[in-house]
């Protein structure tokens, strides 16, 4: 069984987690033009490699960041948003 470590609840089965997609910095909605906003809404960094992603520990509704390699599925580390060491 694959496992993921929630920064609050520790190592749990992957079945307890929801994938929330890659972390994407939001441009300022007041000042960007339509094309940059569309790119933010739709485009993804689809090429394989290490990515920062949102994950949620579903039973406790804890959202956090995981750094994961999207080819090997190896999880390098997890931390709460804004608490990257």
């Amino acid at each position, binding site marked *: *069984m694959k496992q993921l470590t929630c920064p609050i609840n520790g190592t749990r089965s992957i079945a307890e987690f929801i994938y929330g997609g890659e972390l994407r910095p939001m441009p300022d909605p007041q000042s960007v033009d339509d*094309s940059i906003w*569309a790119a933010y809404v739709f485009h993804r960094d*689809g090429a394989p490699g290490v990515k920062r992603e949102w994950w949620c520990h579903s039973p406790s509704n804890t959202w956090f960041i995981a750094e994961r390699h*999207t080819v090997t599925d190896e999880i390098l580390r997890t931390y709460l948003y804004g608490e990257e060491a």
Partner: protein
Amino acid sequence: MMDISCGDRAPILGALYHAPGSIARHDAVAWGYGRGADQRGVEIHQQTEVTGIEVQSDRITGVETSQGKISTPRVLCAVAGFTPRLLEMVGLRSPITIHPLQAMVSEPMKPWLDPIIVSGSLHVYVSQTARGELVMGASLDPYELHSTRSTLEFTEGLAAHMLELFPFLSQVKVVRQWAGMADMTPDFAPIMGKTPIQGFYLDAGWGTWGFKATPVCGKTMAYTVARDRNHTLIEEFGIDRFTQYALVGEKGAASVGH
């Protein structure tokens, strides 16, 4: 007489029947196309990896491969789960993300299942092959991964749902499972046609669609490449539909939770 109340636990309230629905051997179709292309003079280079695509002033000039360089003003990219890697080579961004799609096969048994059965609520589709095996699939893996690995989570989940439909299969063994990489778009429609790079044509984002649209894709993409103009049938599928907020209201996607 059929008990559709299912002991009142999960009563059947309705169903769809699609009379012309049928199964075709996708491997045979792929090999048929391969042979047909070969007989017409197309060179198929197996074991040859694309390592780079040359772009000068937003125009295609060539392709670098593990066997050497090919000079060309035109490239058609139709590589399914490898699309993001090739788009990165030409500096294009897209909404495509890659998710594994898994399937599995049971040991062979006597024929009992003639139609194909799909359950949208259980995320199951199943049919029986001419050899008697059940071919079973479910929805996409829940997160992005560029890999064709198989998982026990998938086998357990799909087997549990299969037993809800057909409890008499409880002693049947699974003999094989596999995965493919599905290139998914936000509106579940493909991305086809010309791109902002002159001479770079895309036929991607087919995700979980299977192979049934292959013939018309071939015709419309051949037209598009030959005339450097999108065929009218594929105009709505351009990669620029996202920046124009003109997504396709896809009505033909499979009835499982892909």
